[in-house]
């Protein structure tokens, strides 16, 4: 039997499976779709949380306090040199006056306290932002070593606690996401396998008959695998579309809340690649689920 003919027969049989028992096929595709909707919603949440963390992380800065004697041109020169240091994203010069102004602003209603000062005790500083990959203890150490030898830098302010908290927050959130994602993924796999198993179980008689008239194992299995794959693709597509629907419905209120809370609101939907990934996952789930079901139940048929 030519393989082209084999594929054609399998395709035709798979089509019959779908049209012959639409309930079963739709139910299986629907279940895959719902599961992938959940997985997708979770991915969406995690990816947006990640972007949020990234934004928070961009506020991690190292302060390099400058010696009092450094004049303005030397300060500018220093900025240029620090900008080329490893892991540095941007450098901002904060003069003595700007430093006092900021401090005053931060005190709010207690700013009057500072009126008693005779002179400005705050030093000028460089606010150094790190590239995202370096926003951790190791990155700080590397930067510290690079700045060590530079003349005109009196002291480095690392904001250790802040960066430690940030790192831990990232680790915790990623950990929880990983755990929940694992449970969700496993549950999805099992639910889909179960559903397809039931749908194959509903057609066990058919399988038995095909075997009785001399259909080989692959002849019997191929249409189910194809059908599973098709259900998975349809389910995945439906899941992505549903997710998109929910996203657009919920977006306005979400955006409002985020803006008020964080002064920042650019929630983003999954990218094209992630959406395709979901559909592919659906297809794989469908094929795998069918294969599992056939292996488990086929032995008895």
């Amino acid at each position, binding site marked *: *039997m*030519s393989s082209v*003919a*084999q594929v*054609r*027969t399998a395709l035709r*049989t798979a089509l*019959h499976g779908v049209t*012959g*028992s639409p309930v079963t096929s739709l139910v299986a595709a629907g279940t895959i779709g719902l599961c992938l909707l959940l997985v997708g919603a979770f991915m969406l949440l995690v990816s947006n949380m990640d972007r949020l963390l990234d934004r928070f992380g961009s506020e991690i800065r190292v302060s390099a306090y400058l010696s009092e004697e450094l004049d303005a041109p030397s300060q500018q020169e220093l900025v240029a040199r620090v900008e080329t240091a490893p892991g540095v994203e941007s450098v901002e010069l904060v003069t003595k006056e700007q430093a006092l102004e900021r401090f005053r602003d931060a005190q709010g209603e207690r700013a009057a306290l500072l009126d008693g000062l005779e002179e400005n005790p705050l030093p000028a500083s460089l606010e150094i932002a790190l590239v995202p990959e370096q926003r951790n203890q190791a990155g700080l150490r590397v930067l510290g070593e690079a700045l060590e030898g530079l003349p005109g830098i009196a002291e480095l302010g690392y904001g250790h606690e802040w960066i430690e908290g940030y790192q831990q927050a990232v680790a915790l959130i990623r950990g929880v996401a990983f755990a929940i994602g694992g449970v969700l993924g496993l549950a999805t796999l099992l639910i889909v396998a179960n559903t397809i198993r039931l749908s194959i179980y509903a057609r066990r*008689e*058919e399988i*038995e*008959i*095909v*075997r*009785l*008239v*001399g*259909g*080989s*194992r692959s*002849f019997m299995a191929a249409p189910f695998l194809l059908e599973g794959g098709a259900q998975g693709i349809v389910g995945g597509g439906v899941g992505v579309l549903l997710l998109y629907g929910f996203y657009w419905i919920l977006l306005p209120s979400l955006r409002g809340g985020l803006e008020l809370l964080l002064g920042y609101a650019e929630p983003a939907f999954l990218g094209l690649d992630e959406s395709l990934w979901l559909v592919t996952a659906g297809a794989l789930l469908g094929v795998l689920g069918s294969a599992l079901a056939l292996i488990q139940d086929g032995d008895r048929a």
Partner: protein
Amino acid sequence: MSRGEGPVVSAGALVRLFHVSKSYLAGSWALRDVSLELEKGEFVFLTGPSGAGKSTLMRLIFAGEQPSEGQILVLGRNVGRVGPAGIAPLRRRIGVVFQDFKLLPRRTVEENVGIALDVVGVAEREKRARVFAMLKRVGLHHRRHHHPLSLSGGEQQRLAIARALINDPEILLADEPTGNLDPDLTLEIMDLIADAAARGTAVFVATHDHALIERYGRRVVRLEAGEVVHDAPVRGPLS
């Protein structure tokens, strides 16, 4: 009923049972020490009361069950040893009319017959022509796009016969193939089966219909409680 103690291979024997017993439930025997041969082109009636083991005998031949004891050679293969992968190729050379028809409820009449050609990989166009010709012979061509559940009992039975015959099998096992047919149709269908035998198919027909047996006057194997109590050759050299 054998020619000697050991299994003697006769050139044309397509089916050979050698001291075969089958027990589904411990302590009771559906078949007991059955030995027989079926040669190319031979037409044998299998008869006996309800529960005598007729269907069991057929199931053993197409490897639907494994024997509890004894050896079965079908088309030169020992069915006890071909393994799961070897069963499908064997079955493609055997046509079976099941007592309960075993039709695919969600495929059309045409597709139910065509599946027997699909499994051997006959091309689409040839398949269609052969299926139509066969359906015409059993009088179902006008129903070819319908589903089996919308057929009458006798129509379903004819469909089952069409599927068994479509592939020009080397062996035909027909389990009570005319139980739902009226006398006229019965004769038409039996002629179809006799034709196959004339073309070389070894035919095994289980039936309760004594009129039929008398009319055709072939070899009759009679089972009772799993044992062969009678094996009267009309043609062929056995016992």
